């Protein structure tokens, strides 16, 4: 195919956008909405994962060390603990630190009592964080078989909650995202099919004067791709707007973050590159493929 012909076909595609502005606008809207919704759902999912892993990092197993353990025994125990695959971090919390912490967390009245306590009854402990919260109970069982371990305290109920939350979130996210993807495809293919249907006479006539299928498809392809790219840019701007809005709300209310013990959300800047690439690629591919696939039916003349 000559360069001039290709230039002509691309030009046809570009002018087609205006000629079929009504249909084009519909495709544009649908693509924009789909990209926006799938994008926002994905961003939410990404951030939820980060938040949950933040909570995971904070959930500690307390290993109570026997009263009769010497410093050497404790060092020995630490080595054994470190050898357990699921153990992530490990830190010693002496009975003195524990005592301070306990006093700090008490009300004035309660504290009044402990002033008179003559001996610190609290034990030395190791505080562990785990890599995978879901197998925490196996890990604690393993720890309890070690020497000089008096007992372990793990936040089992809190872990259960976290696991449940993550399960629910992932089910909902997967359901929402996959529903949206399917729905977008149905709608886009319908709209482009409608657009092609409106131009079926034109396609028909082209076939009669000996046009090849490629000749007929290229303008549709170009048109679809441009619409897809523009929709992607629109969706990107709207995503930025929506995301930063939510981001600012959460940043302002720092109390929540402290209480929920979550890491901060990703900033939009951190996500800009992958999000832009995904949007533009998805927009162009869906637009171009969607449009040109639906021409197929009318090419059989």
């Amino acid at each position, binding site marked *: *195919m*000559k360069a*001039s*012909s290709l230039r*002509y076909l691309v030009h046809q595609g570009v002018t087609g956008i205006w*000629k079929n502005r009504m249909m084009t606008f519909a495709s544009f809207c649908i693509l924009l909405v789909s990209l926006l919704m799938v994008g926002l759902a994905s961003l939410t999912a990404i951030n939820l994962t980060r938040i949950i892993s933040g909570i995971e990092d904070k959930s500690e197993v307390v290993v109570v060390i026997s009263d009769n353990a010497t410093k050497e025994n404790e060092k020995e125990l630490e080595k054994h603990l470190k050898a357990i695959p699921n153990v992530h971090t490990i830190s010693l919390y002496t009975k003195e630190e524990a005592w301070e912490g306990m006093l700090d967390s008490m009300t004035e009245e309660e504290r009044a009592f402990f002033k008179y306590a003559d001996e610190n009854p609290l034990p030395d402990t190791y505080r562990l964080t785990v890599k995978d919260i879901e197998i925490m109970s196996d890990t604690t069982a393993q720890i309890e078989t070690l020497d000089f371990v008096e007992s372990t305290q793990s936040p089992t109920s809190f872990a259960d909650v976290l696991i449940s939350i993550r399960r629910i979130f992932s089910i909902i996210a997967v359901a929402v995202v996959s529903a949206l993807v399917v729905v977008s495809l149905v709608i886009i293919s319908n709209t482009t099919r409608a657009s092609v249907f409106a*131009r079926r*006479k*034109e396609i*028909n*006539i*082209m*076939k*009669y*004067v*000996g*046009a*090849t299928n490629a*000749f007929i498809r290229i303008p549709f392809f170009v048109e679809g791709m441009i619409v897809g790219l523009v929709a992607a840019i629109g969706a990107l701007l709207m995503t930025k707007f929506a995301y930063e809005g939510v981001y600012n709300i959460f940043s302002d209310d720092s109390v929540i973050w402290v209480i929920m013990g979550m890491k901060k959300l990703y900033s939009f800047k951190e996500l800009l590159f992958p999000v832009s690439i995904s949007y533009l690629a998805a927009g162009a591919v869906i637009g171009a493929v969607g449009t040109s696939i639906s021409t197929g039916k009318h090419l*059989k*003349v």
Partner: protein
Amino acid sequence: MVEFQDVSVTYNSSGVDALNKINLKINDGDFAFVVGPSGAGKSTLIKLVLKEIDATSGTVLVNGFNLKKLRRGKVPALRRTIGVVFQDFRLIPTMTVYENVAFVLRVIDAPAKYIRSRVPYVISLVGLSDKAKCYPTELSGGEQQRVALARALVNDPQLIIADEPTGNIDPALSYEIVELLKSINECGTTILMVTHEHDLVRYFGGRIININKGNVDFDEVVGGVQNES
């Protein structure tokens, strides 16, 4: 060259036998009028040549292609050797007159320079130079028909098929159009023209094929009034 060997066509949807075992041979360089009553099967004959429909039985040969054996991908190659004027014009409503004619050349990947010189020339041949920028809906019936004719001529095809190219044109212009087709024919292009206008046929004479109820009733070369005078 167009050749029909025992060709029959039955439309499934209506059960009509549009053509019954037709045998017909149109040689390169012929000029043939196809006449016959409404519903005789004339447009069906044309649809066969374009491979718009396939024969129910029999063989159709067009410009060296055996249409029965022609693969889908080769249909554009066949059609590029044929110029057609359809009974219902079939202009593209979203393109101007110029574009309607030019895009036939774009389809065959003609150089842009050739397109820029060829298209205005052909449009002037059918007398529509001042309407080149109009859209089909802005033209009268006769003007649309002439655009369709220009489109059929533009890529200098081996065979031109015209279904009622003068149906919406006044008599004076009709004669001019047939003169035009005759002169193109003299340069070697085969022409097959369906018409109801017996005056035209009588005037120009030539090969006349009469189709009636799906059969070839009459197929002879007749002297025209034109040549007598």
